[in-house]
């Protein structure tokens, strides 16, 4: 308990991942919070990769964390652009009302 090992870091990653997944489900108000939950999920993945990288003394995990950062930034940019253009067209970003595709 006193000694912080890799299990602590993995548990932290698991908790943040779970909060992110649940956040996608319970946030039916606006889509921006859903995007933020996706960022939380990617952050949890980063925690796992970095802690394993330190534990195994292998730098590859940190390299892949950088690539995940790149993908997360690109995803945020494109997602927010889609939200902006949708708000311009419809005047609302309520997830319940987005049903043009009959999904």
């Amino acid at each position, binding site marked *: 308990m006193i000694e912080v090992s890799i299990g602590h870091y993995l548990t932290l990653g698991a908790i943040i991942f*779970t909060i992110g997944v649940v956040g996608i489900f319970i946030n039916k108000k606006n889509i921006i919070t859903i995007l933020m939950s996706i960022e939380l999920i990617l952050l949890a993945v980063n925690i796992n990769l970095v802690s394993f990288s330190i534990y195994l003394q292998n730098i590859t995990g*940190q*390299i892949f964390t950088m690539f995940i950062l790149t993908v997360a930034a690109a995803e945020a940019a494109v997602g927010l652009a889609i939200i902006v253009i949708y708000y311009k067209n419809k005047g609302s970003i309520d997830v319940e009302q987005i049903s043009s595709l009959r999904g």
Partner: protein
Amino acid sequence: MLAHTFFFYFFSGIAILSSLMVTLSRNTVYSVFFLILVFVSISILFIMIGAEFLGMIMLIVYVGAVAVLFLFVVMMLNVTEIVNKKNLKKKIINYRSVASLVGLIILLEMLIVVSGWKYKETFSVFSSININSEISNTHAIGNVLYTDYILLFQISGMILLVAMIGAITLTFKKKENVKRQKYFEQINREKDSSISLVEVESDKGVKLND
């Protein structure tokens, strides 16, 4: 070691509480602020366990770029005050049961994975790229990133380029009454399409058709 334990519990507690607040907060601006708090405390943890370059990069990329982008969009869309309708609330309760079920299952799965850690002796370090303690973390990443992973590095650059072009084309709006350059038409102009010789009669002048 005691300091490490104390800092780990402190920052991870802050990270967990504020990531809860990200999903539960009514106000979207508060959610963005709590997201920033999560990223800051996680990057502090990264720096603490020796991945200092990634911690700094996370501060720059997430807090400096992504969170500010979120804030800009929240500001532009005017969605901070969400009106909660009564029929919506019922649906949220329905989703809550499903969401807690899914979340519980995922958490249990990952707890099982963590508890299987006693088999760690069967894990093997199967890479020749090891962390050298004599050089710094940034140096070690730079050694590998531009040599072994150069292809992935350039592909991630392409991903950023495509995302930038996509974001611009999505939000680009053609305005009326703005003169723009038409490169091909301008280059393709010939002499006989732009100059015309007119016989001018005296005392009459010339009427040009625009």
